[in-house]
Each structure stands twice: as structure tokens, then as C-alpha cells.
């Protein structure tokens, strides 16, 4: 019996002690009409060899294309020490650290994570992870509604150049609590949100402004001006950031005169494999003045009965297992192991290593831009400086081009047709430090051939 250790002798001794004639008898409180007759739709068992053969065959079927897609999930080198260490059973198969004395390893590593991430974002406190970047934005919006006591409108200014999936999740989640979103347009030809766009809202009751830096197009926002304007209107600022970029970019805590109020993002670039979209981890940091409105777990350092330092979950009066219907969120299980991956990644790279990853990713993206815009019919759509992603305009629909590239083993970028039809045929492409000049050249050659063939057809 896979993973069940009982011998026949064990079973009969156990039933003897219980005083039951059979295992089936233990289910005698369940109405007979409800018992399952058959589970035929579930296949028969495979042993480990068979299941691994099946999974290897399926993995092989998918292959390992050369990937130039970013759009919220980025391929970076993951040091071997990250997963070999966090795959230890003591981390991997432990539960939430409710029994603090038996969970000091998990608790201390969370405290270290909170410290690193708070510093990276320039904030005072950071929680022990949310599910992912999109749900972190939804939670940040709900938190801003609670935290901004001067505002009663529950109105959120949400630029159209914030990741479309993040916007969708914020709507699914916060829409149920009556939060209203106002979509802000971006500048044509530039891709950023102009400060002047906000003038239409001057003097109005706005709860919070969301700013993504770099934004979904990879373009830099004028974060100081946007932040100062929002604060002057009594609105809070929610920053959506890429953690890798923060090695080089001004942290949200230093935006404008007062800094952002809530900072969120996806921690995936810090040591989490792409893995078809998850598991990743959402991060959230803020200022101490807002900490009691923050969702998610927090670890604090304290002392034990002998006065020795130790770590424990704290400020739990915000959470569902204590406050139930009045909790700041319903979140319970988070993304602990991925947050731990992020902790080891940050410790291994250090500030300088992370700067180099960010800088080389920018450089490779510039190379990619040069190579691809050298191809007839390919141009950059936005002239403004940015991080490690760019938007390319094409002269023909992107979908068949991407399909042709995919057949050549290249995932050539994200088709923006469904997200931003006003851009015309457009691709969002990304290169990180993992893309060599040879990779970039082979993408350039393939795209040139595909477009050439399309014109000839």
C-alpha cells in the first residue's frame, strides 16, 4: 500500500483495541446512501518508476525553449545552494510555526527575510509573504482603504500600465468590498503615466494611487512627482515594484518627499523557478504607522523565560484565526518556502550581486532591442528609459509570428493584442542576465527569417 505502513497484524490489533469488526465499520456514522460506489474515473496506481517515466515523457514533450518573455515572471540564474538548502525536510515538510519553540529555524529565517526586504524596499516593516504579486496588490488596495482614515471614497487610481493581471485580480478581490477603480491612461509614445493626468482628480477624495515602477511596459515612471501629488491630495501611495530593479532604483520608501505607504511585488525573481506561474511569493512592506492594518503573518524577536533571544509570530490580533470576521484578510497559508528561497537568494547575491544582475539584465535588454529593431518592420514603441523589458511594434499581427518562433524553439515575447489593442501589433520582450549575446543573435536571426517569410508569402 503506497505510503501506508500498516501490516495485516497491525490492522487486526488496532481494530481489536477499538472494538470494531472492520475498517468499514468505522464509517458507520455516515449515512449509507452517501457512500461512494466506485472511483473508476481515477486510474490505477503507478509505482515511482512508472510515474517518473510518465513525467519525464511529458516534460520532454514540452522541451526547453529559449524564452524572451517577462511580463511579471523573470528567468534569472538561481544559485544551486538555494534549492539544495531549502529542500531539506526540516524546512520543506514543516508547518506554519505556531509552536515557536519547535520552529525557531523557520521563525528566524522569516525575521531575516523581513529585515532584508524592508531594507530593499526602503520601508520599516515587511510581512511573511502573501500569495503572489497580483494578490498582494489586491491586499494592498484593501489595506489602503482601511489605513487611509481621511478618505471615505474607497476610490483607487489605477494606471493602465500596471500589469493587466494584477489589475484583474484587484478587481476580482476588492470589487466585492465596494472598492472603485479609476483607470489612468498612459502617454502615447512614452508609456508612462504623466503627472498632468492626475490633475483631473485634484481636490477629490482619493484613497490611494497605485504606481508600478518599472511599469508593465518596462518603462520608468516619474515616481517622485506622482507620489508627491498623491500625498498632497490626501491619498496613500501603493508601490508595485520588481525586487531585482531595487538594487539600482530609488526604493519606494524614498519616493517623493514622504515615500510610498505600501510596497508590494512578486518575489519570484529572487530564487523562484518560473514553474508555469507558481509557486512564487508576494511581498508587502509598509511603515510602522500602518502595521496594524497589514495582512499576513509577522515574526518578532523577543526573549524566552531565561531572557535568551528567540522568535515568535506576533501582532496576531490582525489575523483570521484570532479575529475571524474582523481580520485584516482571510489569508492563512502563505508562500513560506518561496520566501525562504528569496532570503537565501538575497543573502547569496548581496547588494553588489543583485546590482550586477539588474545591470546586466538591462544591458542584455538593450542589446536585444538593438538586434531586433535592426530587422525591417520592427520598431520600439516607447522612447522613454526603462528597466529590462521593452515594447516592440510589428507591421503584422504578433500571434502568427510568435507561433512560428515557437516552432523554432523560441518563446519570442508576449503578444499585447488582447491587453492593449490600441498599440497595434506589439510584443513585450525581456532579456535577463541568463540570455547570452549568442541567444540574442539567434532570436534576431529567427525573427528576421520569420518576418521575411511572412512578407514573401
Amino acid at each position, binding site marked *: 500500500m503506497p505510503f501506508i505502513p500498516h501490516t495485516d497484524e497491525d490492522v487486526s490489533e488496532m481494530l481489536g483495541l477499538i472494538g470494531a469488526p472492520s475498517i468499514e465499520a468505522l464509517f458507520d456514522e455516515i449515512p449509507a446512501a452517501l457512500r461512494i460506489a466506485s472511483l473508476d474515473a481515477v486510474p490505477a496506481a503507478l509505482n515511482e518508476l512508472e510515474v517518473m517515466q510518465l513525467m519525464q515523457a511529458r516534460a520532454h514533450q514540452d522541451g526547453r525553449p529559449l524564452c524572451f518573455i517577462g511580463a511579471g515572471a523573470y528567468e534569472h540564474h538561481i544559485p544551486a545552494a538555494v534549492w539544495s538548502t531549502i529542500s531539506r525536510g526540516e524546512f520543506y515538510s514543516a508547518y*506554519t510555526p505556531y509552536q515557536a519553540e519547535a520552529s525557531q529555524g523557520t521563525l528566524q529565517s522569516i525575521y*531575516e527575510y523581513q529585515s532584508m526586504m524592508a531594507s530593499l524596499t526602503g520601508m520599516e*516593516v515587511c510581512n511573511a509573504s502573501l500569495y503572489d504579486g*497580483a494578490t498582494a496588490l489586491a491586499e494592498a488596495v484593501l489595506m489602503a482603504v482601511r489605513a487611509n482614515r481621511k478618505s471615505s471614497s474607497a476610490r483607487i487610481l489605477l494606471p493602465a500600465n500596471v500589469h493587466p493581471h494584477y489589475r484583474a*485580480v484587484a478587481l476580482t478581490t476588492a470589487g466585492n468590498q465596494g472598492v472603485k477603480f479609476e483607470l489612468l491612461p498612459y502617454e502615447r509614445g512614452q508609456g508612462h503615466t504623466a503627472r498632468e493626468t492626475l490633475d483631473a482628480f485634484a481636490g477629490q477624495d482619493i484613497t490611494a494611487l497605485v504606481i508600478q515602477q518599472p511599469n508593465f511596459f518596462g518603462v520608468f515612471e516619474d515616481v517622485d512627482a506622482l507620489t508627491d501629488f498623491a500625498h498632497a491630495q490626501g491619498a496613500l501611495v501603493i508601490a508595485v515594484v520588481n525586487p531585482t530593479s531595487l538594487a539600482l532604483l530609488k526604493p519606494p520608501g524614498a519616493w517623493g518627499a514622504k515615500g510610498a505607504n505600501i510596497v508590494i511585488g512578486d518575489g519570484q525573481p529572487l530564487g523562484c523557478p518560473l514553474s508555469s506561474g*507558481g509557486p512564487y511569493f508576494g511581498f508587502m512592506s509598509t511603515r510602522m504607522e500602518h502595521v496594524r492594518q497589514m495582512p499576513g503573518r509577522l515574526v518578532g524577536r523577543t526573549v524566552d523565560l531565561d531572557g535568551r533571544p528567540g522568535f515568535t509570530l506576533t501582532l496576531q490580533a490582525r489575523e483570521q484565526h484570532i479575529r475571524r470576521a474582523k481580520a485584516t484578510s482571510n489569508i492563512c497559508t502563505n508562500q513560506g518556502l518561496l520566501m525562504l528561497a528569496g532570503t537565501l537568494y538575497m543573502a547569496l547575491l548581496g547588494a553588489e550581486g543583485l546590482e550586477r544582475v539588474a545591470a546586466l539584465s538591462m544591458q542584455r535588454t538593450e542589446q536585444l532591442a538593438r538586434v531586433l529593431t535592426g530587422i525591417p518592420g520592427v520598431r520600439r514603441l516607447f522612447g522613454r528609459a526603462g528597466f529590462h523589458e521593452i515594447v516592440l511594434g510589428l507591421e503584422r499581427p504578433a500571434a502568427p509570428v510568435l507561433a512560428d518562433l515557437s516552432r523554432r524553439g523560441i518563446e519570442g515575447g508576449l503578444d499585447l493584442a488582447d491587453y492593449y489593442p490600441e498599440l497595434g501589433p506589439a510584443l513585450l520582450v525581456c532579456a535577463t542576465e541568463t540570455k547570452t549575446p549568442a541567444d540574442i543573435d539567434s532570436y534576431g536571426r529567427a525573427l528576421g527569417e520569420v518576418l521575411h517569410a511572412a512578407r514573401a508569402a
Partner: protein
Amino acid sequence: MREKLIFEYSRPGRGARAQWPAASTPVIPATLRRQRRPQLPEVSELDVVRHYTRLSQLNFSIDTHFYPLGSCTMKYNPKACNAAALLPEFAGRHPLSSVASGQGFLACLYELQEMLKAVTGMRAVALSPLAGAHGEFAGVAMIRAYHRSRGQLQRNEIIVPQAAHGTNPATASMCGCVAREVAVGPDGDVDLDALRAAVGPGTAGIMLTNPSTLGVFERRIEEVARIVHAAGGLLYYDGANLNAILGKVRPGDMAFDAIHMNLHKTFSTPHGGGGPGAGAVGVSARLQPFLPVPIVARESEEQGAGYQYRWLTERDLPQSIGRLASFAGNAGVLLRAYVYMRMLGRDGMRRVGEYATLNANYLAKLLTQIGYEAAYPQRRASHEFIITLRRQAQELGVTAMDVAKRLLDLGFHAPTTYFPQLVSECLLIEPTETESKQTLDAFAAAMAQILREAGQQPELLRSAPHTLPVRRLDDVRAAREPDLIYKSDAR
């Protein structure tokens, strides 16, 4: 036993340089540049490996200890599940890459959906919710969308039993609903008269765990369903305790309209010290149009006998509650659950509920023979059961927490303490099916020792644990003087 903070190993100029890519000098507008480096440690690769390996050794885990944490289903996590999910093609696949280059991956997800439908009796399944509470959110949001689609905007009350998980009322609030508690009778089943009084034109639905958080099967579930459905409400199944009945009874056959499954409990994906999980949702026919996107669909190939897999989006499901996650869910967790289900197969599925129940009833019997008091002695245990220390608390001044802490000294993770709050001084004990009779006997022997100690040297319990890296921690100080991040003296 204390391990320093990683920051305390830091030395200026040190670094894990094998991890540094070549240096380059990007152009960033001056006003956007970072002025001061973040406070990340400057340490070697060995520093990092040794520090976090040592930290891991301060933890209890399934791989090292019996972990009978009620409501959490801490069963063995087979290593093959992890190995398969981390195959480089799966681990390296970008979430937005073409479906053409993801047919193997999508086939696994599709078959996972089908197997989950089969074991739960639901009409359709969506895999994108990222944890149990996230699945609850999806379920209640679908229930609201259903009522809204029928013009019944006033239905915003979610009924929860007194002993429900905290996530249930918190989810109701997240969805803009009001949580309304109903009483549980002395036998552990929902008080039907209280339920009849609670339902009405404002009822959106009821959230139930079955077996309940009291470790007993809700015997009148069919009557509960009739009452709620007759009042126009829907039934939500909190899958936290699905392990108890896997392969024996299906939520769909109990007339539930929406469920979530904790794949990190019932389907054995590792808990990771707090996450990740996966909270797949299943629905009855009437809620199918409202499922969150994306979902994997299988279509016959235009030519040939094979299948093509693709994502269903809002275009296919215009009434969907929408998107719940950045991408398609915790795919790596879903793959682990898929491998687990394939290794168990249909017969193994049935044995999960059977042996989880056998182990719980056996351990319950052992503990009551030793002298512990069962909270519901007249009932069969499901996959978990509650003992109460109310007598010991009164007579000896020894609490459930004291027993829990002493268990840590004896090499066992503690059961869940003080939940459900309905039972005073309680321990909720869930052994799971992957533990042997010998482990259960050893746990019972430790519990017998603790009961003797409670009578003879109660202070030993009140001051436990004695052998762990730290003794009991000052939680009050942690909350009053929050120390949430490290600040070096230098700054």
C-alpha cells in the same frame, strides 16, 4: 544552541562571488537612482549554506518528527512528487509561453482536474486558487455571483457553525458578506433548529467542514442541505478535512455546491513552513459558469486521434468571477499533487480515508484508556479527534498548552491547541494514514508519561519545554515592543 543572525556573519568586502554576473554600467536617470545600498549581508556561500542548514536543524518537521497537528493533515510528502515538479522543463517553463510548448504540462493539469472531480463528485474544477483560504474566497465569490445573476442582491449572509475555521468568517467579510454563526449541539452536530431560525431571504449560503472541526461526521448533512437549499442558499464545503473521507464519501453527493480542496493537506504537497499550498475549487452545475479563470480544456485534434489542451479564459466563461492569481495558480504544487494521485491510484485513494480514520480511532482509544478525556466519547472519531484537559486544568493546574509543550521535549510535535474554541483546554489530534501503529504507540506512551508527571511534578509541565533551543517565549513583549527587523548598531 543559538544561531546568530545572518547579518552578524557579515563582513565588508565578503561575498558569494561565484553568484555574481559580470559587471556592467547601465544608464539610469539620476533622479531614479538608488542612493544607499540595501542592508543585505556580505557573506560567503559557505556562510549561507551553514547558517540556513543550522537553522533548519532547529525545526520540527514531518521528515524528522511525528506531527499530529489537527486540521493540518501532516502526512508524509513523497519525494518523487518534488523530483517530478522540479524536472527542468517544468521548473523552467514560463507561465505565458505558448500552449504549443506546454502540452505535456497542460495534460497533467487537465488530468488532475478530472481526478479531483472524480474523488469529490463535483461537476467542474478550477485549479488557480493559491491556498485554502483563497479557494474559500473563490467559492463565496461564486455564490455571490450566482445570486447576483438571479437578481438576488440582498443575499449577503454566510452562515458558519460556531466551531468553524477562522478563515470561514474572514472569507465572508473579504467577499463583502456578513458571517452569521449557528450553534453546534452537545453531540457535535449542527443544531438544526438554530439553522432553521438562521436561514432566510438574506441567506447566501452556509460554509461547512465535514467531518467538522470537532472531529466528527455531520450525520444530518442531508437535512442541513435541504434546509439551506429550501431557503434559497447554497452550500460551501471547506475541504480542510477531506482526508477523513477521501474515497468514502464525496462532497458532491452530500449536495454541496462549491468546495475547495487543500492540495497541501489531502494530496500531500509539502507545507514549506507555512506555504505554498493550493486551493483548487470544485462546483456543482449551477455554479460552473462562475468558475475563476483560467481552466484547462481538452479538445480533440482536428486531424489524428490525439488531444490538444488549451486555457479557457473569460472569453469562454463570460460569467466567470475573473482572475484570482498573477498566472494559472501554484503550478508546481499542482504537479506534485498530480504525481501523488497517480501513485495512489483509485485503490490508494480509498485507503487514505480508511487508514486515516483507523489511526485516529486507535489513538483516541489508547489515550482514553490511559486516562485522557475525549471531548465526544459517544462519537466515532473521523481522521482526527479532540481530547480535553479541563479536569487536569482544574485539579492540577496543568493546561493543554503545558501538555503540548512537554510533548516537544519528548520528541513529538504538539497537536493543535485551543482550537476549536468551543471545547475548553483542548488538543485536536490528527495522526494521518502514513504513521505506523508503532509510532502511535510511542506517542501514547509519551502522553502517559506526561499524565503521570502532571500528577507528580506539574511544574515540569508548566515550565516545559526544557530541551529545545529556546524556552517559552515572551509573546506579550513581542507584541508590545515589536522588533520586526534587524537594525545594525552601525546605522
